[in-house]
């Protein structure tokens, strides 16, 4: 499997995700944002961080960078694209995913381990997990409060396009278990074809048992499938 990690000025989880990919034997390349061509890849990762300082609006400037038009083309042709945290924000800003990521409802940056429940494993990204499995992942963001209109929300809910929702250890999904105000406790969404995933939690931070649980491994393993 070949992967490409896009690097913007201000990306800071690019190395972390590359290490996770290489650990699982992906042949990974780091692609600088000024490039105009993408190498042939089975997976494109838009990593976390603060691309362009998140100035103007999180992800807004990165969405206009050279390489993004290549990412958009690849995505439209069905390539697998994973946007994590700032990467999710960029995928929304460039139009590959719908909706908006607003400022956290508590108006503070939040970084902590949270729990999410797998809503559906019928896709390329979560097929190694069981439906309703509870995962411990880490979040670290200021704008992770997902919002969308009613019609799109119904589409997401009805078509298994919400793979992860924030929950507690018993799997309860409600306001108490919602860290950032995200509508319906949404932690991740797909596009209609389920080849493009945007998620606020960082799976790459949960792949090394010296540091943490390994609940993020399943996502990378699923992609190998």
């Amino acid at each position, binding site marked *: 499997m070949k992967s490409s990690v896009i690097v913007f000025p201000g990306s*800071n989880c690019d190395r972390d995700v590359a290490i996770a990919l290489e650990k699982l034997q992906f042949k990974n390349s780091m692609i600088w944002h000024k490039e105009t061509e993408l190498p042939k890849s089975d997976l494109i990762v838009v990593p976390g961080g603060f691309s362009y300082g998140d100035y103007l609006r999180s992800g807004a400037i990165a969405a206009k960078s050279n390489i993004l038009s290549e990412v958009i083309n690849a995505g439209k042709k069905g390539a697998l694209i994973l946007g994590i945290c700032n990467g999710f924000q960029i995928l929304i800003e460039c139009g590959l995913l719908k909706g908006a990521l607003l400022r956290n409802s508590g108006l503070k940056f939040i970084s902590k381990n949270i729990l999410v429940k797998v809503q559906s494993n019928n896709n390329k990204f979560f097929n190694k997990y069981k439906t309703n499995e509870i995962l411990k992942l880490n979040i670290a963001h200021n704008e992770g409060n997902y919002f969308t209109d009613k019609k799109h929300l119904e589409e997401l809910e009805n078509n298994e396009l919400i793979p992860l929702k924030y929950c507690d250890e018993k799997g309860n999904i409600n306001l108490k278990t919602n860290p950032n105000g995200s509508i319906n406790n949404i932690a991740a969404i797909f596009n209609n074809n389920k080849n493009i995933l945007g998620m606020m939690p960082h799976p790459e931070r949960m792949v090394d048992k010296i540091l943490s649980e390994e609940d993020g491994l399943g996502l990378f393993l699923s992609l190998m499938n």
Partner: protein
Amino acid sequence: MTITKNQIKTHGLKINEYEKIKELLGRDANLLELGIFSAMWNEHCSYKSSKIHLKRLPTRSSIVIQGPGENAGVIDIGDDDAIVFKIESHNHPSFIEPYQGAATGVGGILRDVFTMGARPIALMNSIHFGSPQNKKTQNLLSGVVSGIGGYGNSVGIPTVGGETKFNSTYNENILVNAMAIGHANKNKIFYSKAKGLNKSVVYVGSKTGRDGIHGATMASAEFDENSEEKKPTVQVGDPFTEKLLLEACLELMKDNSIISIQDMGAAGLTSSSVEMASKGKLGIELNLNKVPCRENNMTPYEMMLSESQERMLIILDDKKEVEAKKIFDKWDLDFVVIGKTTNTNRLVLNFDNQKVADIPIAALSDEAPLYDRKWTKVKLSKNKIKIKDLKKIKIEDALIKILSSPNHSNKSWITDQYDQVVMCDTVQKSGGDSAVIRIHDKDKAIAISVDSSANYCKADPKSGGKQIVCENWRNLISVGAKPLAITNCLNFGNPEKPKIMGEFVECINGIKEACEFLNFPVVSGNVSFYNETNSKSISPTPVIGGIGVFNNIKKILNIKTKKPGNLILAIGKTLGHIEQSAFLKENFSISDGPPPEVNLTNEKNNGLAVLKLIKENFVLSAHDISSGGMLVALAEMSMASKLGLKIYKPKKLINSIEYFFGEDQGRYLLEIDKTNLKKIESSLKKSNIFFEVIAEIQNDMFEIEKTFSIKVNDLYNHNNKWYHGFNAVN
């Protein structure tokens, strides 16, 4: 134009100091030169009041690669790995503008570390605020925490802990001390000493603006009711540019084109160019028309005194300019040759084809004033607290009072605003005795702890100075690390007052004694004087940041108890020293009497014995006993695991309150397996270490035999209440 008395005063200089300037120049200074002198001769840059005392601190050991005097200290952790670290204050700016003050404090200390060729791998901090009842405190806390997080999170360096304290002594002078830790190849450390004639002096990074002009001078004076007006002297941080500068510098450092490099920190372009030239015994000539400016019509005075952030000065090898510029172009950063090294030993500045300043380098550095200020011995209180009056209080109530107090409450409200795990090497986050960071791609790790004890230092500066070094040492040992070296940030009042100077001198003496005894050298640091408002000084607050190393990543301990049935062993003697304790402060608002005695021999023996037990795999979890005493330490272990404890009643003839809340030094709590008790006992007896079995781990209930019993979950709730209540959005 001659310089007026008023100009001298507004530049923070004394009349006799200006006389000396005239003598050194052989003429009157012009305004630009006066500004340059004021930037180099202020307390912050010259260490004029502290230097002669700092010299007494031990700065060498077999693992020290670079001690004080460079951008940061460097120690050897084996193989080719070096750790580069330093702590620095940003107190004055943070009080005036909490978000930017704290953010740029973090930015500055990060640059000190990556200037030396190290990739920053962790950030820590020590922040002190006034009483929670003070109306400024909430805003300052919120702003400082957002600023620290905002900068570190964006650059992508994990902020893994530190300490937050509240005391009315900081009502008008908060403390914001930030520590950065980096990893480098020990054969590729970069220094600030210039070498070679006619070498290009290159300006890289952000453009120069009008922010932070005279910042260092502001930080070298007391505050008064007009301090708010000093807002323009606070710099504005841009973590995005810092991240670019970090990556660009580390990329450039991969080859050998850099001769020397220095970040533009306090006193900006002035101090960076003077320091490089001074260390290299060279002159430096700059063409100020080349300086990249953010605003139009900036004067030489503004350029030389601006403290705009995210800038560096590099002296580059001949013919490497083209390659170097390519790297900075890639990162969209300015890269401009603004001058060259000369053999004149003078700082010469040109602007619009005119020489606008010409000063001997030595006048700005070696000849800067040095004071042996008068100091008086601190009067020590010998008051003993009569325990009779205190007996009325129930142990359980006293414990809950301490655990729910601002100074002992769980700090997740703060630490949840810091990205603690970016870079994916954080083995242990904040909340334990030390943070633990793995060395990337290796099976080894370092432990980091930041500590202070202003109450002890106020009561007895010398003993307090010793105590913090020991507490720091203990915190590193408690996670299983071998303590190696420290950095210190010395926060005090106005050194021109003999009483304050006395506190400083005696604290230094205490730190020196402990560091020497424990072979725990000081490799970097910073002094912050003038933490005073309207003549009211803060308590003396030296802050110690220590580093320890693990050669085996599998032997890292935390404070979480592991299994019901296991025993808790207390190492070190409990005498019940209750004066200056959290117990008295939180329950009776008393802070009187001497701080607990520090016995360095016991401290060392106990610490080494604990390390030995850890090495032999006998220890399952560990915690040092510090503020709050034994019962608070036991509760912290319980709350971390949510497992209960059955604590035995003290067998000795000692009052329970003194036994459980006394703050005697040199003590640790260790969790062990019952079946190993005999072996451990004989090992400890052999090395003459005092110990006692004090508790057994059980489920759910935290109890003292025949005294009280409470659910661990309830303790946890008491411990987690305060911050959220205090910071609730009204």
